[in-house]
């Protein structure tokens, strides 16, 4: 199990055990993290699972692919560390990953 921490917009921490191979979005939904909507269900077809990756983790998590960049155009307050959480796959190297949930989705 890989540990992930979601920090909701109000500052609440959600520490979850995530299975490798699942997406960060799926773990947010499973643990009812507020502010992650995932309207399209993980098809990279909306921008409602937008998160900010903690600065210490941006290099390990990596950059969005072109299709994800395109979807990020529709997200709210996009920053250099913005990612769509449905496109981040959980793996051993992400143990301890921290992501923040924006004020709103789109």
């Amino acid at each position, binding site marked *: 199990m890989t540990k992930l921490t979601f920090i909701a917009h109000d500052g609440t921490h959600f520490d979850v055990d995530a299975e490798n191979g699942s997406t960060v979005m799926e773990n947010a939904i499973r643990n009812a993290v507020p502010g992650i909507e995932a309207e399209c269900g993980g098809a990279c077809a909306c921008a409602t699972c937008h998160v900010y990756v903690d600065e210490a983790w941006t290099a390990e998590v990596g950059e969005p692919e072109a299709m994800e960049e395109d979807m990020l155009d529709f997200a709210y307050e996009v920053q250099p560390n913005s990612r769509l959480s449905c496109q981040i796959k959980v793996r051993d190297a992400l143990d301890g990953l921290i992501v923040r949930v924006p004020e709103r989705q*789109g």
Partner: protein
Amino acid sequence: MTGIISTDVLIVGAGPVGLFAVFELGLLDLKCHLIDILDKPGGQCAELYPEKPIYDIPGWPSISAQGLVDKLLEQVEPFKPDFTYNRMVSSLEKLDDGGFRVTTDENEVFEAKVVVIAAGGGSFQPKRPPIPGIEAYEGTSVFYSVRRMEDFRDHDLVIVGGGDSALDWTLNLQPVAKSVTLVHRRPEFRAAPDSVNKMYAMQEMKQLEFRVGQVTGLTGADGQLASATIKGGPDGDIEVPCTRMLPFFGLTMKLGPIAEWGLNLHENLIPVDTEKFQTSVPGIFAVGDINWYPGKLKLILSGFHEVALMAQAAKRVVSPGERIVFQYTTSSTSLQKKLGVSG
């Protein structure tokens, strides 16, 4: 206004469940007309994730969303359904004879004996960009589509977005507007490369301005915009003149005017019974993702089951008293005749 369009069943939404409703209703000799806000059939499958595989359609270990839509269109073809695209249903009125009159946002009038709402997550509508106070300018200075180019003549126009709509209107409105500023959060575009090249060429000739960044603020009064603040570009925060704005931020889904039809609602979903999938108004049915009942799962396959049962009930509304003989497509010669196949 054109004449009234009459049909047995008016289906609101041409997604997979609306399409399969045509099949089940067609087997019972009911003629269908579908209305959809998109410019094509398939709903979310076609608009949001056409190339994504679906793994839980019985009999199809894997099928792309568009592939499923194409197969459904092929399956309903024998029943010759009519389609009206790019329209949103607006009002619904009950007629004295028991049927319904439904009007669209373009004032087409439909009369049907039965209405089936298969509207999925609701109608696709332009997404409002996250700019504080933008609501105050919508419809007067901020528009989400271009109905008449003349509305933009001699205005300081700001277009926001990086897709084809944003680029096409940047190019088309440039000769009409007083000034055009295109704002996109990055220098890469989703739009056709040819349009992007043309845009850059016009920028070279100082015919328009392209700025990297996000619009974060608006100024103006009484619905009339004056300027927009753009943040995040290399020049820091800048203010540009803006008396008209066209944001292209994709689509979102909303229940829309159906909410005003007098149906009971449950958190923006339409409660139905699980025998007929009928709403609180007899003769109006709801199937697929838009309906709600205990145990509801938003699966395409659940929608398929729902339309089969709904069709039986709809037939009883259209042809009261007529005996419905339950038949299998595998063995019934009369069903096979309707399908244009021989057993």
